């Protein structure tokens, strides 16, 4: 009884915290300059958080080591850009310079976002049929291969009337074009990213806590035992793969909205590696970990370590600091995390109010350590 009460109280706290977060965001967006780098980091961070969580669903919760995320983001980004580009732009020379655009209609922002996810999911379903029979490393390299094939396919000349070949897509409905429904008032862009990602991540959390999620975890922990318990391996793997790709597609679409331009050349394997590193830094199998890590990753990469690139910050006449040094320091930090903190920030744990309470009560586990020591000493004395 007590436990249930606590649980209800905790979920109330969570809701209040989320509402407070959105309120703070709204106030910040209305009062601060929209060009501030803080908003860039927040927007990109939350977009990466979504794709990291979707990768975590595969790698951390279903135990499928897949490296195809960039490919599905590519599908999402292109689908969104092509569908949401106004017909007038498609007919003009400004984007489709060398081809005649074959798509003769355009859609609003939300339908395009949704379709971006759905088309990524359809591709995933087709790719999953052959690929999910493979295991561990082979699965990783095969999904990586499919991502590369997709990239080549989107850059193919014959696909030009749809994808504009290897050229840039732009002038579609980006973040500045989002409006409050039924009005022309622009919707705060950062808030929009947080809302969409928040809803998607919430859906993934609900899925993980459902019976499907428990089946995924069973497959991760022991495939043979899971199969013996009557879990249809292929069906659940395919389901996890498709859902993960759906959300990767949506996050790709949001990345397109955020960037104003899209080009297939951007979605290389390096992008998948970055997402994988975020997942690892956050902790494989922890949703909150992935979210925290993606904000930290983007903030370090784009903002906090910037000063390392400024040659004016050099001291003692050493010419160490110059363009690119930031990335070197950043990759060394990543190596240190990978080598010495291989569990990541959160390990397999999730954020919980109980955890916060325990932390406030006993920061860094010092008290528990002392108690343990005393108990041990007592034991020795007792003997």
């Amino acid at each position, binding site marked *: 009884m007590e436990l249930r009460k606590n649980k209800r109280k905790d979920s109330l706290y969570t809701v209040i915290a989320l509402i407070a977060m959105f309120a703070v965001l709204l106030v910040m967006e209305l009062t601060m300059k929209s060009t501030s780098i803080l908003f860039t980091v927040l927007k990109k961070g939350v977009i990466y958080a979504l794709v990291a969580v979707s990768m975590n669903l595969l790698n951390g919760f279903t135990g499928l*080591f897949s490296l195809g995320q960039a490919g599905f983001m590519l599908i999402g980004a292109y689908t969104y850009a092509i569908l949401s580009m106004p017909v007038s732009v498609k007919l003009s020379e400004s984007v489709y310079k060398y081809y005649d655009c074959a798509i003769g209609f355009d859609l609003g922002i939300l339908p395009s976002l949704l379709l971006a996810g759905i088309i990524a999911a359809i591709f995933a379903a087709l790719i999953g049929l052959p690929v999910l*029979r493979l295991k561990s490393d082979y699965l990783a390299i095969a999904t990586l291969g499919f991502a590369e094939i997709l990239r080549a396919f989107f850059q193919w000349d014959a696909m030009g009337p749809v994808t504009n070949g290897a050229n840039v897509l732009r002038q579609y409905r980006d973040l500045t074009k989002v409006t409050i429904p039924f009005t022309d008032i622009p919707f705060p862009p950062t808030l929009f990213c947080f809302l969409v990602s928040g809803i998607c991540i919430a859906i993934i959390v609900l899925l993980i806590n459902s019976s499907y999620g428990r089946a995924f975890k069973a497959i991760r922990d022991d495939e043979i035992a899971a199969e013996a318990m009557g879990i249809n391996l292929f069906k659940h793997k395919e389901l996890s793969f498709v859902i993960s790709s759906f959300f990767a597609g949506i996050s790709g679409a949001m990345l397109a909205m955020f960037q104003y331009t899209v080009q297939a050349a951007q979605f290389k394997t390096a992008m998948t590696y970055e997402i*994988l590193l975020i997942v690892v830094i956050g902790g494989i199998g922890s949703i909150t970990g992935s979210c925290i890590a993606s904000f930290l990753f983007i903030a370090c990469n784009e903002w906090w370590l910037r000063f390392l690139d400024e040659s004016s910050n050099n001291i003692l006449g050493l010419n160490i600091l110059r363009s690119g040094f930031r*990335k070197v320091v950043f990759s060394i930090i990543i190596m240190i995390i990978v*080598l010495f903190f291989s569990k990541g920030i959160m390990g397999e744990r999730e954020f919980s109010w109980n955890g916060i309470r325990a932390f406030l009560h006993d920061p860094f586990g010092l008290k528990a350590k002392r108690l343990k020591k005393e108990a041990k000493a007592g034991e020795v004395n007792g003997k």
Partner: protein
Amino acid sequence: MSFLQNSLPYILAGISVGGQYALIAIGYTMVYGILRLINFAHGDVFMAAGMFMVFLSASLPLGISIPLVLLITVVLGFIIERVAYKPLRSAPRMSVMISAIGVSYLLQNCALYFTGGLAKVYPQLPWLSDTVSIFSAVTKRVTLITPILTLVLVIGLSMFIKHTKVGMAMRAVSKDFETARLMGIKVNSVISTTFVIGSLLAAVGSLLYFTNYASVTPTSGGMPGLKCFVAAVFGGIGSIPGAVIGAFIIGIAENIIKGLGWTTFSDAFTFALLIVILLVKPTGLFGEKATDKV
């Protein structure tokens, strides 16, 4: 005759690229055979060897810089194994693979820092860079030297693995890690040797490869690296002759596709080939059949 004239350059280029891929693929296949690790950093070691050559040859004569490049690359491979992979020996396999991705990220960023992101012009190696013509097809001499050198090195390596004590230890470790350790084989030094051999061959490969391509960028190791891994899987991972044959097939096929005017798909084809072979014969052409014990 006109067919020969048109297609011979592509086939020659294919054989040559295949030889270069083979030298890199051996590094992948040996490391995978022993550690069960896809060494994602291997392609970047190959790129780093190219960078060393660019920087060293700027100040030293070729006679000194070439051996020095081989030496530094070997040391780099050795250090990577000791620092990034050895501490994770008892960790889950995924951690090691992620560590490899981290090393690859680090090497690329270091290269980016030292070059400032510009493509570096690879030095012209006398004799190797000279143009020659056979059957009225004009090509660089390196194109003809590569397959020969590759075969010599591969035969040497096979002899080394078959007939020396270290080679026997390698075979034992790749067969069964734990039992080899129980038999008193120094597993760590065997693994180090593997990395040394892999890096040495990658350095030789990079000398040949970049002489053909003439410029090095921080990301120029990525694609060849992945393709060579595909070659290793294609031939059956863990098998050296398999990796060599796989590399030649991929190199030739890729260049024929380029010759047909499908350049966009030359990379994609490699991966399509990989997926087909994984689905039809998951152990590759020469791979041993692995049985999972419950």
